């Protein structure tokens, strides 16, 4: 025992709750001010812990449904972030693809200006690549946002 705590505290606490006292504990308690305090505290706290809740608590079903909803919302917010990044990246890629397709001479000019025209850019984009990019953008947007779309309905 020290000045703030007695080693018999837990035993005393259990004994008060179960009303089962050993002779040793009974002898100890009569001479220990800490344990006397523990007995009083446990008794008082027992009284207020056995009170009735003043109103009906929500059913488990309500809590369960709210938790499912919260979980889905959390998942969607993560998904929304991924969708946003994905959409931005694919949108930029689509735009660049479109520019390649419609204005190949612009890139030719740009590449020639920097003196690095080793790659045949116009050849790469002239065989349907821009169409594929646009379809890719639309499919990606659909895949990333369908959960949000259905969750709202």
């Amino acid at each position, binding site marked *: 025992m020290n000045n*703030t*705590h007695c080693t018999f505290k*837990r035993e005393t*606490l*259990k*004994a*008060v*709750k179960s009303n089962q*006292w050993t002779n040793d*504990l*009974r002898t100890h*308690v*009569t001479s220990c001010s800490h344990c006397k*305090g*523990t*007995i*009083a*505290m*446990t*008794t*008082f*706290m*027992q*009284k*207020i*812990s056995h*009170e009735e*809740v*003043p*109103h009906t*608590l*929500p059913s*488990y*079903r309500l*809590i*369960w449904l*709210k*938790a*499912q909803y*919260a*979980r889905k919302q*959390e998942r969607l917010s993560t998904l929304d972030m991924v969708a946003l990044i994905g959409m931005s990246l694919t949108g930029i890629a689509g735009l660049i693809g479109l520019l390649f397709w419609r204005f190949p001479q612009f890139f030719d000019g740009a590449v020639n200006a920097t003196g690095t025209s080793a790659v045949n850019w116009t050849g790469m984009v002239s065989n349907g690549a821009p169409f594929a990019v646009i379809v890719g953008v639309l499919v990606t947007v659909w895949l990333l946002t369908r959960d949000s779309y259905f969750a709202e309905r």
Partner: protein
Amino acid sequence: MEESAFASFYESTKQQLWLYIARTVQDHAAADDIFQESYIKFLQYTPREKHELALKSYLYRIATNVINDHWRKQKRTRKWFASKTEEVPASNNTTDIDMRHDLTDALQHLAPQQRSMVWLAYVEDYTHKEIAEMLKVKEHSVKVLLHRAKQKLLEIFKHKGITSEVSP
């Protein structure tokens, strides 16, 4: 966690958890909100641990965190941790309801953290180590703060004329 498992866990813990929250925050409306939020967070982040005692401890840990968040929000507008120095009126009430009221009232003279500690220690039987983990304080601090809370409450009880009928 399966729905049926949660249903039985909820039924076995709801009353005590609500009382713990209500006694700590001393506000029934806030207690209702904290109560629901605690279970929702519990379900969102349920650990793999299947043992009911461990789950209960986890639930109390979440509830304690939600209570702390509640105090932090309250603290922005009011000084909740200001010590109360008003005199406790002496009373000779002996009926059970009056006594409960006095006991509940006495808890208000403790800081919120001490209320949590007292409840977790004397009602839920958690060890100092477990309480320290829940409240994110040192184990030694729990010992000291609990001791002070006990002394303060016993003094108030004595002043109000409340005595324990239990004798070993």
